[in-house]
């Protein structure tokens, strides 16, 4: 049938991840944004460096695969990953992707200074987490059940004090793990409305190109080839939970013969392996050269 390509967002960036990325692509980022990508752990304390770094890495890897004649049938990105996905699906041009991600990172960096963030609960269903969230959420202490990475892995977004309360409740109610995660903004909740508004306005000026490749949206978990849906997702995924579980379930319903996770990390390929025996791997497992070797070998059959 074809390949499903997955694009992770922030979380697994690390020093050295850009070592294979050619200079001209790094220069292009500089020319478009004035940001010199710096591939160090210190630099990756900064959201702009992280977001642009990951996007650039994904663009590079997409280019390498496509040059080798390997193309996706369906793509899905997680949060920031939607830009890599839209680029891979040929909905978004490289330059536009870089500019818009730069804008997104800046807006996110300035949106909240402290006291807000995200958490994660493992071992409870979405319904269970939503019930706990409802006990805590208030206008002064907003908290939301946000991303759904698997049936029993639900993120929380909101004010840290409120998240902490939900975490305590979750532990009491049988969660295996409930903890804060290192994200300084309450992403994928209504608290990102202002950021999304500005970003959406910017996206209106960018051309989204129709494509034969299917794109999975964060905000609904559905597959689409509509430029309006894709534009909406790129601009507004920050105010919606990422329905990653649904996205991957839908992708699996297309019976892809191969699933590739782009860098950085391999969290999503591990999740896939828990529910499907379709051949799945992360480029980070092998590095780009060996990944290409494997992809070409499998393509030959």
């Amino acid at each position, binding site marked *: 049938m074809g390949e499903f390509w997955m694009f992770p967002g922030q979380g697994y960036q690390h020093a050295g991840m850009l070592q294979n990325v050619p200079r001209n692509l790094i220069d292009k980022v500089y020319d478009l944004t004035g940001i010199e990508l710096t591939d160090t752990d210190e630099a990756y304390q900064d959201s702009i460096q992280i977001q642009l770094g990951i996007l650039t890495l994904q663009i590079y890897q997409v280019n390498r695969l496509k040059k080798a004649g390997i193309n996706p049938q369906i793509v899905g990105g997680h949060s920031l990953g939607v830009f890599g996905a839209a680029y891979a699906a040929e909905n978004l041009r490289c330059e536009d992707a870089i500019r818009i991600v730069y804008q997104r990172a800046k807006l996110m960096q300035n949106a909240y200074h402290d006291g807000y963030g995200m958490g994660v609960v493992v071992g409870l269903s979405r319904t269970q987490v939503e019930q706990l969230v409802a006990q805590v959420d208030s206008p002064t202490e907003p908290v939301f059940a946000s991303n759904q990475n698997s*049936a029993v892995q639900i993120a929380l977004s909101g004010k840290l004090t409120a998240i902490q309360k939900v975490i305590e409740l979750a532990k009491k109610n049988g969660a295996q793990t409930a903890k804060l995660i290192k994200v300084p903004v309450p992403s994928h909740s209504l608290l990102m409305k202002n950021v999304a508004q500005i970003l959406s306005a910017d996206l209106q000026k960018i051309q989204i190109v129709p494509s034969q490749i299917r794109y999975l949206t964060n905000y609904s978990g559905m597959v689409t080839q509509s430029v309006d849906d894709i534009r909406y997702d790129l601009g507004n995924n920050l105010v919606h939970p990422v329905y990653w579980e649904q996205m991957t379930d839908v992708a699996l319903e297309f019976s892809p013969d191969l699933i590739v996770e782009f860098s950085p990390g391999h969290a999503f390929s591990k999740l896939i392996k828990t529910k499907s025996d379709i051949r799945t791997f992360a480029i980070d497992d092998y590095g780009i050269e060996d990944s290409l070797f494997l992809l070409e070998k499998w393509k030959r059959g």
Partner: protein
Amino acid sequence: MKVKRSWTQQRDAKNARMEKVSSLLNGKFAKTEDAKEILERLIEPNDKVVIEGDNQKQADFLSRTLANVDPERVHDLHMIISSISRPEHLDIFDKGIASKIDFAYSGAQSTRVSQMISSGRMKVGAIHTYLELFGRLFIDLIPNVVLVAAEKADRNGNLYTGFNTEETPTIVESAAFKNGIVIVQANEIVDQVPRVDIPGDQIDVIIPADKPYELEPLFTRDPQNITEIQILMAMMAIRGIYEKHNVQSLNHGVGFNTSAIELLLPTYGEKLGLKGKICRNWELNPTPTLIPAIESGWVESIHSFGGEVGMEKYIAARPDIFFVGKDGSMRSNRALGQVAGQYAIDMFIGSTLQIDKYGNSSTVTAGRVPGFGGAPNMGSNPTGRRHSTPAWQAMKTTDNPLDKGQKLVVQMVETFGANKQPVFVDKLDAVDVQKEINMENAPIMIYSEDTTHIVTEEGIAYLYKTDSMAERQAAIEAIAGVTPVGLRSNASQLQDLRNRGIVALPEDLGVHRGEAKRSLLAAQNMSDLVKWSDGLYNPPAKFRSWS
């Protein structure tokens, strides 16, 4: 007052449509590359269209073609698909070619079906059982056009559907005799078909497919994955149900639980001296895990809904057991199989994802609408039946001479399922899903009142013996483990239910838990199945044993 009208309006309309494609046809035959044009000319907006989507055989060339027609020309179709199994079945809705659906099963596409229903892109007539859907093709869902798949077609249009005949004859019949148009994709055009499964005069258009139709080995379970818990439950079922009620004719749902039973018959069952006494006549797809039982002489007959990839040669060599044509290949028939499964067998045993405290079961979970398939037909008690078999009679609970027996409907589940989530729940997810997608009926697969037994790793609840809902609930609680439902049971309650024979634990059945080991299975892996079959079974590549 007598109406004045033409009584051949439908026939005239059909003739007019056929006229539109006459230039593209050579007799009944069209070219592969004209398929899209033919569909665009033959199908009109708002038509009722059947695409053959069985469990296994897919008219995928025609469904891919339909997903590519011009939505300006063809739109708002009302699709009837027994099994929504392919992505393009849903692309048809995404593109606006169709807007309404009646279906029975959508396991392989259940997430997307759920999304499309809740987003309003797909309007659902109903989620049927197979027999309801087949029946209504002849009542109020009579199709304008049907798109089916055949393995071979001959020059006269006779079709050979062979091993995977499944529901092709039923679909064709609903259109062919009521002015509908029958379009067939064929893997191969031959001078003479090996046997005529469907006569050529029922067929309007035959298009050679671009590639052979898709087949999925849906009923193959690798014994390697059977667990000791499943073996324990299988032992309990054999002793506490099959043996106790003398079950002779039956259907097994698809799954590792029932595979375990099949693989214990030649070992555990044999040791109990049950050969020839139980499990003789089957309504069942040709599941490979039944091979050891067949080879060791347990099975007298098997009728099948459909085929199973890799079993062709084995079946051809066992015509005493299977329904095989003179040509040497099996004939399957889903509609007749469902009738037999509903009306002619002693017992249905299967598995499910959730059972509520009352005993209703469902395979619907949040975000997925998989439909039902055959389980609700097989897993229901046809109250008009009057069987005289020992099992059916055994379900009588009073001395009243007018008391009726009952079909045995058995659910077999572990108390906790995937992700360590409880299977026994106070409220089914199906109830929320019903609200979410606004359906008339909650998507219950098997109703409590039809369920006679539940088997878990803790024991068996003999629900048919209970005489109140409270007692039924207590019986379920007693075997529901440490799920929220099970925690309500206490030791004295359990003792009382055991004393009255409403609940049985392994020790009550003479089942020794220590015996529940994988070495008790007649086959532990795929290559064992191949050995049992004398090399006649040829497992699909994805089930290959590595050794």
